[in-house]
């Protein structure tokens, strides 16, 4: 399994949210500020990578009959560790994400990767799978946050970036973000649950369009190549 292919799969062709269509609850619920999105994305990335490594390391010992139960225990373990660490070191993030941190346990991305990938692959491959799938997830979250925040409240980087005393990153969620246009002109409907559904729906639609177009282009190129080859034979 080569790393480059895994990278492309995680980010684009087999993106967990946009193509596999899993793990959507948190994607729609918490993507209201960049702070939440980056925090959630990185938490999932770390948990996913750890679980992938452990599951693939134990794959020969885990009895097939109770594998799902064991996966769930391992995942719940890592989720709780991350939850406790966040509460201790980045309390603002733990508060903003609330119940969605413990709910990573039932996020289908993690159990899905354990079942579909780590059971059959080596520790190394599973490690990179975790990183790239996690990155794919984080990217989607970031795109959702940026779109919803910009169009909804005319802001960029809420909670994460503070420009009150010069440009700096904040980890306590107090940054006001960069106001690009006055909040009153924003479509604040995008901050509501409706915005989550609409933005994700549109993103998936764009992805479907792009994938379809790429497939068509490839088909056309192949057809042209085949025709050219045929012509050569005829000549």
């Amino acid at each position: 399994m080569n790393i480059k292919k895994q990278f492309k799969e995680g980010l684009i062709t087999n993106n967990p949210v946009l193509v596999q269509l899993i793990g959507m609850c948190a994607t729609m619920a918490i993507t209201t500020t960049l702070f939440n999105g980056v925090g959630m994305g990185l938490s999932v990335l770390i948990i996913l990578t750890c679980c992938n490594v452990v599951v693939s390391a134990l794959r020969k010992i885990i009895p097939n009959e109770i594998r799902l139960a064991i996966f769930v225990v391992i995942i719940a373990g890592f989720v709780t560790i991350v939850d406790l660490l966040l509460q201790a070191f980045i309390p603002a993030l733990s508060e903003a994400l609330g119940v969605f941190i413990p709910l990573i346990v039932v996020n289908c991305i993690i159990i899905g990767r354990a079942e579909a990938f780590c059971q059959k692959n080596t520790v190394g491959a599973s490690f990179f799978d975790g990183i790239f799938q996690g990155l794919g997830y984080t990217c989607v979250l970031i795109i959702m946050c940026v779109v919803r925040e910009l169009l909804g409240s005319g802001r960029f980087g809420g909670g994460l970036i503070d420009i009150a005393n010069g440009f700096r990153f904040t980890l306590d969620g107090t940054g006001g973000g960069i106001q690009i246009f006055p909040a009153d002109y924003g479509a604040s409907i995008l901050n509501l649950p409706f915005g989550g559904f609409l933005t994700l729906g549109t993103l998936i639609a764009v992805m479907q369009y792009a994938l379809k177009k790429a497939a068509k282009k490839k088909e056309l190129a192949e057809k042209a190549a085949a025709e050219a080859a045929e012509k050569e034979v005829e000549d």
Partner: protein
Amino acid sequence: MLTNILSIALGAILINNFIFSQFLGCCPFLGCSSKVDTATGMGLAVVFVMGLASAICWVVDTYILVPLGLDFLETLAFILVIAALVQFVEMFLKKMVPSLYTALGIYLPLITTNCAVLGVVLLNVQNHYNFIESVVYGITGGLGFMLAIVLFASVRERIQFADYPECFEGFPICLVSAGLLALAFMGFSGMQIFG
């Protein structure tokens, strides 16, 4: 007491609907909503499991985890309780109430990974609900889920005949219509019983 319970119920079904306002349980919501029958089956199974899980997890939390100072194990304990509960309910129904089993059977295994179920027990702990409040929140939360999924399934049956851009085929158009439903549910926010 009664007002309190009524306002929890109203909140869970309409105002803070699990799907449309809290985004809990979106995967089965989108996965099992292509037909009204399937949606009703899934909804019933969720009401059943959420009610039971709320009751059992409350007991486990109050009488085992908190007295022992093990509340950091909540997530782990709850997910194990839910998984075991789902297995048990499945076996019980198969033996004792076969007719209900044929109706709900195929949806039960899916519920373990339904974040609405784990969500409701975690929220019970977070909101410091007592036993009755927890059970009421569990059952009415499930009813809210069922209302959402049945409504959405009937919308979805009609989407097939609608004209929309080709790239919205499948999930995207469903998400957009679910969003419109969520917008309609927004109308309930601020509603208060005897307020």
